[in-house]
């Protein structure tokens, strides 16, 4: 259509007036506007990510800023900006307060990683009110199935930070994260079973969760699994295997494991018991 421009004002107003009431017309314009804006924001975002991946952080930050300027609902762009401010890349210096602002905007859009990171900043700030907010945002991300946040929420329940101390809840959230393969949660869940916190005490379960974490390279779990081996808790006593786990933990600088190895002067060839 070459004749796109309305020819006569009066005709257009009667023409659209016949169809749309003014409030409907403004709702239609809003839809069109949102479409345009979303397309622009998406364009800036894809350029920004390309720059970010190419480690051109300054241009990436500029493009992410453009993106959120035209599309304030672009959660992922807010999240990246938060990372940039938190780590001080592509921006003059680290700025945790600015990072918190960015992550809050993404968190409010339901972006799980941003919810988790914002909660982390709140937890680091570390007073009663901030613990409450940390618990709120960890819970939001945890409910979305984000394993890191499930683990973090479990910690808050175990310590009673920002929520009433509740070992059962702690165990519930550790288990959710552990089942997704989160090593720290597997380690803590192992601890819950070893100590009977929020679950019935069960050394076999404890050892099996420690083993899962240990196999992923978690030094604490490697040491604890070595200790369970040595004591024969939840498994057959086995010094050879214990020494293997102690050595792996010690290799990662775990001091307890290094000490334990000193009492294993040479790896015993035979098995006692």
């Amino acid at each position: 259509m070459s004749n796109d421009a309305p020819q006569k004002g009066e005709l257009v107003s009667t023409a659209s007036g016949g169809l749309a009431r003014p409030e409907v017309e403004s709702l239609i314009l809003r839809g069109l506007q949102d479409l345009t804006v979303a397309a622009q924001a998406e364009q800036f975002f894809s350029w920004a990510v390309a720059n970010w991946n190419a480690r051109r952080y300054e241009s990436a930050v500029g493009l992410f800023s453009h993106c959120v300027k035209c599309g304030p609902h672009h959660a992922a762009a807010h999240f990246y900006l938060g990372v940039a401010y938190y780590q001080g890349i592509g921006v003059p210096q680290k700025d945790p307060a600015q990072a918190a602002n960015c992550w809050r905007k993404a968190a409010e859009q339901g972006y799980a990683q941003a919810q988790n990171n914002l909660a982390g900043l709140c937890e680091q700030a570390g007073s009663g009110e901030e613990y409450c907010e940390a618990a709120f945002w960890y819970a939001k991300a945890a409910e979305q199935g984000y394993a890191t946040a499930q683990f973090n929420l479990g910690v808050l329940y175990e310590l009673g930070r920002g929520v009433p101390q509740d070992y059962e809840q702690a165990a519930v959230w550790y288990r959710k994260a552990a089942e997704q393969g989160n090593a720290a949660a597997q380690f803590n869940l192992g601890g819950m079973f070893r100590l009977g916190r929020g679950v019935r005490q069960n050394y076999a379960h404890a050892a099996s969760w420690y083993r899962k974490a240990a196999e992923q390279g978690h030094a604490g779990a490697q040491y604890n699994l070595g200790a369970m081996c040595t004591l024969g808790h939840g498994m057959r006593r086995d010094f050879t295997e214990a020494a293997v786990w102690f050595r792996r933990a010690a290799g990662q600088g775990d001091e307890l494991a290094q000490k334990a190895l000193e009492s294993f002067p040479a790896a015993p060839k035979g098995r006692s018991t």
Partner: protein
Amino acid sequence: MAIGLAFHVFAMGTQLIRRASQVEEELAARRAELSALQAELADRELSLTTLLAELASFQGRYLREVGVLYAELDAWNARIAELLARCEDTEQAHTDAAQARVQAEQTARAVRAETAQQREFKPSLKLKRLYREVARKVHPDLATDNTDRARRERLMAEANAAYQRGDIEALQRVLDEYESGEGYTLLTEASVELERVIRQIGQIRSRLSQIEQQMTAFRASSLAKLKARADAAKSDGRDLLAEMALDVKGRIAAACLRFDSLSISDEVHEQ
């Protein structure tokens, strides 16, 4: 003298006959022209009313699928602004809250009437054919006097409404009513008839150009632009309105979260 007179009469007679046949020839040609124009007019009226019905149906779908979500979003935004006004208690916050409330009410008004609207507009071939016939016969620009015009305008409006509803029976009733009122056309002299036909042709031509202008204006409207984008998306196998709805749903969820997190800090402050 007598011969001369007779000659004169004869000459006048021939002239009269010649003139009458000229008029009749022109009348026949004009009638053919009128009939072709009537068919064209019926066609264009059909296109116009189809375009209007499609736009109205699309508007209904937009308001039902996306508009109601905007209304929900604006309601949340108003609640958030009111909560902020309560916490901060500044003049700016109260102004923002009042504005957000007005916006929420406006959006709610826009979608209120649209919840039980019609389905997608898909006129059958039979419906189109019938409409074309009605338009060809009933069209107000065929009117011979003001009474006739008023009657035709009423019938044409009924026909448009029936067509846009897809109500084939109502459309048939319009045609029946029109035809029951016909038949009293008096035989008129050819020259008077010719004048009438020429007038009708003029009226139809000006209506045809008016229809083109109206269609151009409708196609340039924001509603038509949005529909064009939805149609383009549809040919890519995408559902634009569903995508827009998803986007607004995300923003509603965000607004809920924002409201919750603000309520939390509100409670903490109150403790």
